[in-house]
């Protein structure tokens, strides 16, 4: 696999390219509107059936995550203790390279040259598949959408449905071309019916499930109190990877920890409704270390930082660590719906990606990252949809300020000059008779700075004969 987000241009340019793809926009509009409708119906159901409605559940979900984040060091130590007591081995990794090296060393130690993988955002974040490939270890993605992306040498464009940008005809073509190169090929009479394509994936992956000796997963939640990891999925590929291999390695971001077993309650009610628009996803697996005679004989957990402590230090942004990767914010985002995920240049696209990337990686050193917080109209639909009440617009605005601050002291951009000029004018208008100068400044700003980008497809309104304040002065507020 050689597809990469490296070198992706900043959002405005990447978006322009994607906007020109009419097929992509049709796929996205169909997919996001379908899933929005499903989610809305279930939220309405909860509204009627639960005390305090959906909002009470959101507040409880946010509180469950915050409880753990406020005492994250203690929760992780507790998790390490309970996991170890349950027979698991705990590893710690500060960054992608450390985590990848740990996984590779474990796979090599068992003499394996392949792993089967549960869909996991964090292993994409750290580039695990590519790191393993460099060690001669094949990593097979087993989630259907991830398989489509992997076989198509493609990049994921959605958190939940990474191949959302592909339609059935494209998927059929990818299966026919690529399946046979890495295992059991697709049948020659493959049609593009979703059920037929899913059946081909079942056959293709079956042999890999049955022979694999090492499974790799992430985790949706890690319960400190009981030393339990939780994986939420639909297809059963997760159960296969978590049950059949002798060795299971789970890479878990440190923000995945929750304090108690009971804390799972709001989260398990919020996640499936927000992500797939189901009351409950088909399969949820929970395991607490090693169970003799059942499942893997060796269980490893790699606790990963990779920027999470950086995000935790950000007082406004730290609430983003509550994210449970449901992707509801993507599905309601007017920007995501038009551009798709690739334009964000990260495995985390959409509104959550627009804050998570700068929070995890820092701002002021990459034009690509610095453009992300501006890839939003601040319409607030993401916050409204977020099941754990992450105030994404607030964080976007805060990240914008951090980006501007990071560039202060350098050569000012035309935008910075305009803002400074405007600030001087607007701040001093009270000392100027009638504020007329302010009005002229406003008009200058609107016509000179914004006009070229504005008028490519939009007319500007005609300028009025006089400003409001001049009218007010001339007519004494309309009284004469």
């Amino acid at each position: 696999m050689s597809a990469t987000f490296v070198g992706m241009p900043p959002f405005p340019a990447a978006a322009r390219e994607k906007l020109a793809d009419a097929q992509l926009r049709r796929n996205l509009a169909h997919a996001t509107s379908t899933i929005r409708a499903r989610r809305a119906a279930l939220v309405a159901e909860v509204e009627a059936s639960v005390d305090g409605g959906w909002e009470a559940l959101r507040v409880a979900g946010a509180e469950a995550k915050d409880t753990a984040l406020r005492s994250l060091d203690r929760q992780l130590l507790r998790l390490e203790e309970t996991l170890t007591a349950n027979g698991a081995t705990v590893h710690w990794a500060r960054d992608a390279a450390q985590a990848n090296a740990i996984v590779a060393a474990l796979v090599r130690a068992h003499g394996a040259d392949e792993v089967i993988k549960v869909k996991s955002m964090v292993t994409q974040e750290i580039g695990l598949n590519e790191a393993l490939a460099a060690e001669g270890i094949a990593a097979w993605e087993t989630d259907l959408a991830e398989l489509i992306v992997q076989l198509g040498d493609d990049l994921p464009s959605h958190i939940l449905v990474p191949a959302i940008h592909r339609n059935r005809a494209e998927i059929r073509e990818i299966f026919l071309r690529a399946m046979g190169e890495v295992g059991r090929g697709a049948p020659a009479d493959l049609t593009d019916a979703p059920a037929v394509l899913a059946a081909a994936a079942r056959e293709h992956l079956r042999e890999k499930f049955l022979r694999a000796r090492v499974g790799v997963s992430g985790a949706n939640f890690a319960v400190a109190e009981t030393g339990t990891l939780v994986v939420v999925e639909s297809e059963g590929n997760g159960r296969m990877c978590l049950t059949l291999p002798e060795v299971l390695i789970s890479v878990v971001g440190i923000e995945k920890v929750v304090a108690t077993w009971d804390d799972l309650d709001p989260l398990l009610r919020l996640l499936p409704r927000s992500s797939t628009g189901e009351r409950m996803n088909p399969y949820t697996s929970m395991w607490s270390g090693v169970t003799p005679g059942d499942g893997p004989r060796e269980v490893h957990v790699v606790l990963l930082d990779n920027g999470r402590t950086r995000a935790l230090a950000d007082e406004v942004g730290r609430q983003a660590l509550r994210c449970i990767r449901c992707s509801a914010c993507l599905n309601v985002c007017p920007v995501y719906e038009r551009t798709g995920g690739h334009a964000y240049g990260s495995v985390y696209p959409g509104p959550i990606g627009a804050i998570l990337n700068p929070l995890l990686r820092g701002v002021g050193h990459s034009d690509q990252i610095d453009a992300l917080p501006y890839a939003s109209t601040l319409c607030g639909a993401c916050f409204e949809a977020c099941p754990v009440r992450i105030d994404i617009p607030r964080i976007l605005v805060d990240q914008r300020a951090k980006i501007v601050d990071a560039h202060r002291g350098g050569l000012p951009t035309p935008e910075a000059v305009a803002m400074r000029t405007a600030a001087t004018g607007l701040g001093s208008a009270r000392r100027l008779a009638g504020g007329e100068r302010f009005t002229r400044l406003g008009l200058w700003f609107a016509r000179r700075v914004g006009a070229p980008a504005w008028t490519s497809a939009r007319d500007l309104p005609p300028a009025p004969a006089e400003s409001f304040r001049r009218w007010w002065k001339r007519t004494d507020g309309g009284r004469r």
Partner: protein
Amino acid sequence: MRVALMVTCINDALFPRTGQAVVALLRRLGVDVEFPAAQTCCAQPMINTGYLDEAVPVLRAFVEAFAGYDAVVTPSASCAGCARHQHAIVARRAGDPALRAAADAVSPRVYELSEFLVDRLGVTDVGAYYPHTVTYHPTCHSLRMLGVGDRPRRLLEQVRGLTLLELPGAAECCGFGGTFAVKNADTSIAIGTDKARQVRNTGAEVLVAGDNSCLTHIGGLLSRQRAGVRTVHLAEVLAATA
């Protein structure tokens, strides 16, 4: 009750008729609104683009202009939202307790027009007459930042002669987004084009919203497409009489 009009920078420069409509409407309802001449801007363009230091002098001008009023009424949910939810951020940044106290005193008194009419004046029938077919776009900041809910609709439903047509996908953003409209012009236009199509499909003569910034964006697209749909601010509809 001393009531100030915060006309907003865009309305002052480009849409004086909206400000005039608020004045006429409030006078008709018995409110003698004042216009503090020292007002300039709410500072939202700076804040939402990340220029917090630059927002500080603008906030100082704002609180000086509007100090002492019982209510500050503005025909913009976006600017009202900025005053209510973002001025505290700027004041904190300035590190000036006096500015913070001044902002805290003014912020909660800032009302978007429909909130002021329905909540403070307790009216939904403002005695307007507007014999046109209208569709209404509830702007994002009115819905999700201020939570004005159905107040604008309740006001429109009482306007005589007015036929209100349902706008499909009404709660979805129009794609304006302040500086987003120029920083990400292509995406902004793509979102707006879908909104403009929904507006055209209603068959309405007039698109009404409570914010001229969104209307400038959608209206600019409709005008370029020669769609024949006019954009009119909610205040101007409510001020109209037979």
